[in-house]
């Protein structure tokens, strides 16, 4: 059924009791043309674009829990493409372009809100770096505007722009097309659209082994039995090391917990996304009214999907430094998600060194905003058994070749990116 004002009116008259289910829950078939591990946004997007763009419809998505139950439902919903280095800039810009039309593409309201993403700068040196990145973005055809302190004070009245602030604000780099997207809707929208094209979405089906034959993928062992396939894609960021190890591949990745937290809901007080690299903090207001906040990693390897108190304290302290008036709010919830942190801070969207094995992972903090591009490029890589120009640099081999894509220049320490 196509969702529209007419279907809404028709179902309102029947008390919303007759909405059809949005996707099937089929039993796995013995074999598929392609199997995607991971039923989050990336895996579901990959399946959707495989079916839609490349006509591959005999495809399964395997999810160990429920759809969008991992990082898709744990991020802070921010989308942007304000990167400096070409491979990241063009890939994230593809993603932002796909976000702009995604609700129409999927016939599902993902609530893309181009409210702008503002990176605050607090020192002349940071100003130079932001100007450089903003100019690089504009040369790459990506929107970027530099705002003065006065313009920021006018746009965001509750931000402390005074001269005697602990971290005085000198200006900021704004990407107007950046913003937020309703994260659960992304998983549901891609799932519904992929299912409508014939993709089998199989939940409660954990992959426990990868079967190889003559050095090539032959299928996966799962908690629901063996499923044969010659093309296997891993879209399991957070656990990429574990899945790749099943095929004998070691990755330049460590898993780290990134926390997020929300205040209790209030009336609209903040109509843009504000970030500060100097105090390690970002904030936006959800449509429900909660202030959604995040900061640094927990800085030690973790699979626990929860964090530790020092980061919660750091994030709230940063919040109050920038927005003193938010001190009267209460912290409602905190949670953590597990990030694949690569050794250069950039993702791996590539063929792995086993025939028929592909991955989209190593997304560090950047996974959610990349969801459409990750799916689009992974689908292309699977269908052609070769990368697209836009992910040709996002290989696993770049680490051995010295072609790192290190935005921060932080070096090979996974938790420093």
């Amino acid at each position: 059924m196509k969702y529209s004002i007419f279907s809404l009116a028709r179902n309102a008259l029947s008390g919303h009791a007759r909405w059809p289910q949005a996707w099937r829950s089929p039993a796995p078939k013995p074999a598929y043309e392609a199997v995607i591990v991971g039923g989050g946004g990336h895996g579901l997007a990959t399946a959707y674009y495989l079916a839609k763009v490349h006509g591959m419809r005999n495809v399964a998505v395997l999810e160990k829990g429920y759809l969008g139950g991992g990082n898709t439902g744990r991020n802070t919903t921010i989308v942007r493409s304000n990167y400096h280095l070409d491979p990241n800039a063009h890939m994230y810009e593809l993603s932002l372009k796909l976000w702009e039309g995604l609700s129409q593409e999927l016939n599902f309201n993902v609530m893309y809100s181009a409210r702008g993403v503002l990176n605050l700068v607090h020192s002349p040196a940071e100003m130079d770096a932001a100007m450089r990145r903003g100019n690089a973005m504009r040369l790459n055809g990506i929107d970027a505007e530099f705002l003065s302190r006065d313009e920021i004070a006018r746009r965001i009245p509750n931000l402390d722009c005074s001269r005697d602030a602990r971290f005085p604000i000198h200006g900021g780099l704004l990407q107007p097309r950046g913003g937020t997207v309703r994260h659960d809707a992304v998983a549901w929208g891609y799932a519904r659209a992929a299912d409508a094209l014939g993709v089998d979405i199989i939940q409660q089906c954990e992959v426990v082994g990868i079967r190889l034959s003559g050095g090539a993928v032959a299928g996966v062992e799962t908690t629901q039995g063996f499923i044969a396939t010659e093309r296997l894609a891993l879209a399991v960021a957070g656990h990429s090391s574990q899945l790749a190890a099943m095929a004998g591949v070691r990755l330049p990745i460590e898993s780290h917990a990134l926390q997020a937290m929300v205040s209790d809901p209030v009336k609209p007080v903040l109509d843009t996304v504000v970030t500060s690299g100097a105090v390690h903090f970002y904030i936006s207001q959800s449509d429900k009214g909660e202030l959604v906040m995040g900061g640094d990693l927990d800085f030690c390897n973790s699979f626990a999907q929860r964090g530790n108190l020092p980061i919660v304290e750091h994030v709230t302290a940063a919040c109050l430094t920038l927005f003193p008036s938010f001190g009267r709010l209460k912290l409602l919830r905190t949670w953590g998600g597990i990030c694949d942190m690569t050794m250069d801070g950039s993702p791996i969207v590539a063929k792995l060194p086993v025939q028929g094995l592909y991955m989209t992972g190593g997304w560090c903090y950047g996974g959610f905003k990349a969801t459409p591009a990750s799916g689009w490029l992974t689908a292309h890589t699977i269908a052609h058994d070769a990368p697209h120009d836009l992910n040709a640099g996002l290989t696993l081999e770049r680490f051995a070749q010295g072609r790192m894509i290190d935005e921060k220049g932080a070096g090979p320490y996974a938790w420093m990116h």
Partner: protein
Amino acid sequence: MMLIPCPHCGPRAQSEFTYGGDATVKQPAPDAPMEEWFAYVYLRDNPKGLHDELWLHSAGCRTWFKVRRDTRTHDILASARMDQSL
């Protein structure tokens, strides 16, 4: 908040410490092949479970030491000086 047992100072709050990563990687010989150096710098086992790792007591005795920690639960099972085994 994790309570990290420094082998010199005893249990202290996590906020006194700095993380140093996987303690099992060993620097290869200077003339070792490039593959070994590559693995040393970039590749990690990243275990979901027990992880031997380095910590620095940066706001205490400023000494590096080793910790065995469960990455699923953050439970710390043991700590040891650099010249001891876990």
